[in-house]
Every structure is written in C-alpha cells, then in structure tokens.
C-alpha cells in the first residue's frame, strides 16, 4: 500500500512533528514499504486469540498509599528550558 502525502502530513500532525517537504516524501516511501511488510500479519487467522496484555501472569500490584519524600522543586525544574517563579514557563495557551 502507498500512503498519500496527505496521510503522511496527517500522521506528522498527530505526532506533533514539524517535517520538511523532503522528509514527507522520504517518509511516505519508507513507511509505505514498512506497512507493506507488516501487512503479512493480516493473512493470519487470529479469531479466538486474545491480544497479549502482559507477558507475565496478571496479578494485583497495590501498595499502601502513604506520603513519602519526593524530589525537590529545584531538582524538578533544573532541566527546564525556561522557568519563572518556580514554575515551567510556556507561551500563552489561550488568547
């Protein structure tokens, strides 16, 4: 199958990736080839087969909900590209 350029553009939009036109053309070819390869899965009859949700036996994983020390605000903000008043700084989201 061959993806259309519009489809590639739409996928890039969903993935929040700004791509150049050259990248779009390139990915269109490569993704189409990969999708052709994975299409062989469609030939397998999987009626009655449950999808894998975990490779391990399912079990209860609970712990008591108790407060404990976490990382400091300083630690959490140290890697941020822009901060202000101990918070992450971003451009306005609403007009």
């Amino acid at each position, binding site marked *: 199958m061959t993806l259309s350029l519009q*489809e590639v553009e739409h996928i890039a939009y969903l*993935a929040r*990736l*700004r791509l150049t036109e050259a990248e779009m053309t390139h*990915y269109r070819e490569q993704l189409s080839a990969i999708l052709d390869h*994975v299409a062989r899965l469609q030939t*397998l009859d999987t009626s009655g087969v449950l999808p894998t949700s975990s*490779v*391990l036996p399912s079990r209860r994983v609970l712990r008591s909900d108790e407060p404990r020390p976490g990382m400091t605000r300083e630690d959490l903000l140290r890697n941020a590209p822009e901060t202000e008043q101990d918070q992450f700084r971003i*451009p306005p989201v609403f007009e």
Partner: protein
Amino acid sequence: MPELTDLSLLSAVEALRRGEFSSLELVQASLERIQRLEPSLQAFLTLVPEQALAQARAADHRLVAWRREPTAPLPTLLGVPVAVKDVICVAGLRCTCGSRILENFIPPFNATAVERLLSAGAIVVGKTNTDEFAMGSSTENSAYFTTHNPWDLERVPGGSSGGSAATVAARGLPAALGSDTGGSVRQPASFCGITGLKPTYGRVSRFGLVAYGSSLDVVGAFGRNASDVALMFTLIAGQDPLDATTLDLPVPVIQLNGKGDHNPPLRGLRLGVPEEYFIKGIQTEVEKAVRAAIEILERLGAQVKPISLPHTEYALPVYYLIAPAEASANLARYDGIRYGPRLPGEAMWDIFFNTRGEKFGPEVKRRIMLGTYALSAGYYDAYYGQAQKVRTLIKRDFELAFENVDLIAAPVAPTTAFRIGEHTDDPLAMYLEDIFTLPANLAGVPGLAFPVGFDHQGLPVGMQLMGPHFREDILFQVAHTYQQVTDWHERKPGIFS
C-alpha cells in the same frame, strides 16, 4: 601478571580483596585504556574520570580497613569500574539517550539497576553510546557519532547498546549495563564477541531506564564471560516498588559448576534447536559456528531436539508495530517544556512541533510516525490489535516448546558485524538484522548471547540461549559449561594490543 584491564570482573573483585593492586590503579588503568582507544572506538558519550578516581580512592580506604579487620562483608563490586548505556539514568551524569532532544538533560535520580550497582560498590566511569532512544541495531542512529567495532573499525559494533559492548570487548572495562527491547544487548554482544544477557521481562527494574517500548524493554548486562554476567545479573535483579512489572521472586544464587562436577556435565539437559532460526539468507559461517557449538553442548551431555517455533517469521512485523506504537506514546513527553532544548514558537503548539521536528533524528521520527499511524483511528484493530494477537501466538510457541525442552539454542543474528553505512538508508534491511532476537522480547523470555566462533574475516559469531521465564540460571549454567571447554570468549581484538 596480566594487564589489569584484561582481568574479568570476578578476577578483579578477588584481586582487589587480596590487595594485589588498588582500586585507584585498576580505575586508572581502565581510564587510560578507554582514553587511548576512544579516538578510534568512540564508545562513550560522557566520561567522568575525576569522579571515578575519587570514588576509587574512597573504595581503597574501605578495602585497606577491611583487609586489616575483615569483620563486615564488603560490597560485592567495591572499587570495580563499570559503564552504563546512555539510556539508563545515573544521578548527576548527563543522559542524552543518543538524542539531541536530551542533549543537556541531567537526571536527578539513579535508575534502580544503577542504584544497586552503586550500593554494591561499583564505580561508573561513563555513559556509553547508543542508537537514539535505543532505536537501532548499529549505533549509527546516535545523534552524536557511530561507535566502531573493535574487531574491525570499519564495521558497526551492533546496537543499540553498541558503546557498552565495544568498550567491554576492547578491554576498556570488565562489565557494563545495556538495555534490550528487540535484541539491543544480545546483538552487540554477538557482533563484539562478548557475553550479554537480556533478562526475563519483569526480572530487572525498568525504573530510570528511559522508556522506549515499555512492554518489551529490559535492562541487561555485558561481560566477557558467563560468570561475570551472572554476577552483574544477581546484583541488578529483583522486585522494585518503583516498577510494578517486577515480580516478587527470589533472585537465584547462581552457582556455576566447572566441567568436573558431573560427568557428562549437561546430562539430562534437553536442548531445542528451532528450524525457523536456520533460514535461507543466514550467513553460512554463522550457521556453521552455531551448529558446531550445539554439537559441543551435545558432547557435554545435552540431548538435542529439533523443535519448531512456527510463528517466528511474524516476529518482525509484530515488533515493528508494537514497539513504535509504544514509542510514539512514550516519546510524547519530549516537547521542550520540562527538559531538553526548546525551539522558539509563537504558541505552545509551535514549540512542540518545532522542537520535536528539529531535535529528534530520522529513525526516531520514522518510528513515532509508524506508531502513531498504527494507533490512529480506523487503523488500530488492523495493525496494533492484530499485532498483539499474533504476539500471543509467538508467546505460545515458546510455552509449547518449553514443555519439551529446557532451553533453546539459536544464532543471535543472521550475519556477523556489517559495515558502517551498509544499511543506513534502508530501514527494512536494518530491521531484518533483528529477526532472531525479537521473539524473546515479544515473549518476555530471557536470552543469553555469547561467542561461539569467528568468520573468515575474523569477526565474532554469537549464539543465544533462550529459556523459560525466570530461568536465567539455566542459561548461565550452560554457557559457563561451554566456556569451560572453549576459549572464544577469551580472544581479544588484536588491533589494540
């Protein structure tokens, strides 16, 4: 006395205790060798020589005190240098994941596997090169540089944990951590002629391992022989409250017996050989070396049985839907807000688009796109849903096989190390390098790769043993027994000696 850098992990531990040399001498020798090789090998993204030397001096104080008065037991790896793949967090050390999008990221915490090695006294000398976010089979997808194979500098070391494998093979360090999502420990171990373990999913905590494909990822270890890797494994394995997929199972004490303990040593072992792993297209010398190794195991007492894992051919398409789907979700966090560089944009959305478009490399973008598509409305059932069903069939193949055999022997990769640049613009050809390693990740079973010969160009050939969930102990026992009667694992790349 052999060179300090030639010592195995266990020998180094024992010699340090006896006081044959100091941790400072050992770490210095290691750093000197690494720094001498680095211009041609390029295994490290970050090296911290001063910090490592300071830790070595501190270890020496403890060792001296212990030798004077050996009351309390010493931490197992006290004073021994190790390296960590750059997708695993070490507090205070830059963790790039081989990506520009984390070029300045300094994690404030240790991964659990690292925490356990540090508590065991190990000294981290640096972070090793990897394909960007562990997506690749050669380290060529690193945004920084390509690591070279110590057996032939024009070839790749394998990947994605290529930096760790190359430095251990080149005698920079006795052991290192890696991660294996689709073969990223076993394939570079094979290409570099060393021993590498992909543990059972859920055996080693993923906390602090930067997520790629969360249902497949596992932290593994490299060493120069099975006993060293077994030691690393027992130190990093075990339940962790910070990773809910880890199981509350005792970590086995692995007692590796020499060949003299039983006669023959592998009597009673049922070894399965899957026909699907000896397909057309596999390099003849790889098949020959692996079959010869299986014969040796047979001579050591194993009962060899042909088996079938009929869904093997579907592992590649299943993996290249599931891993990218999980990656597309996991990598959504890199948006230029909380860490990493930020590209300017008028609105917040523009920051996301610009930062991600510019700072992710081509393979990462390709997999994010593929995964996004496989999860998108209208395609989910056909792609992702169907892949998870076929995954069940692959898992079942292993369950059925393990009703009749104790473990499975197969090649690690269809070829020995390929040339740098050979597959770079053909993603499918690159993906085909992983066909023999992907099934173990999809089924969650453990796999151990180790050298079983060389091809006519002097490149190592690896074999992998795969076992039932949580039976790493059998893998180590069998590989160790093999290594008692062969010396492939002791060969050293000649170019640097």
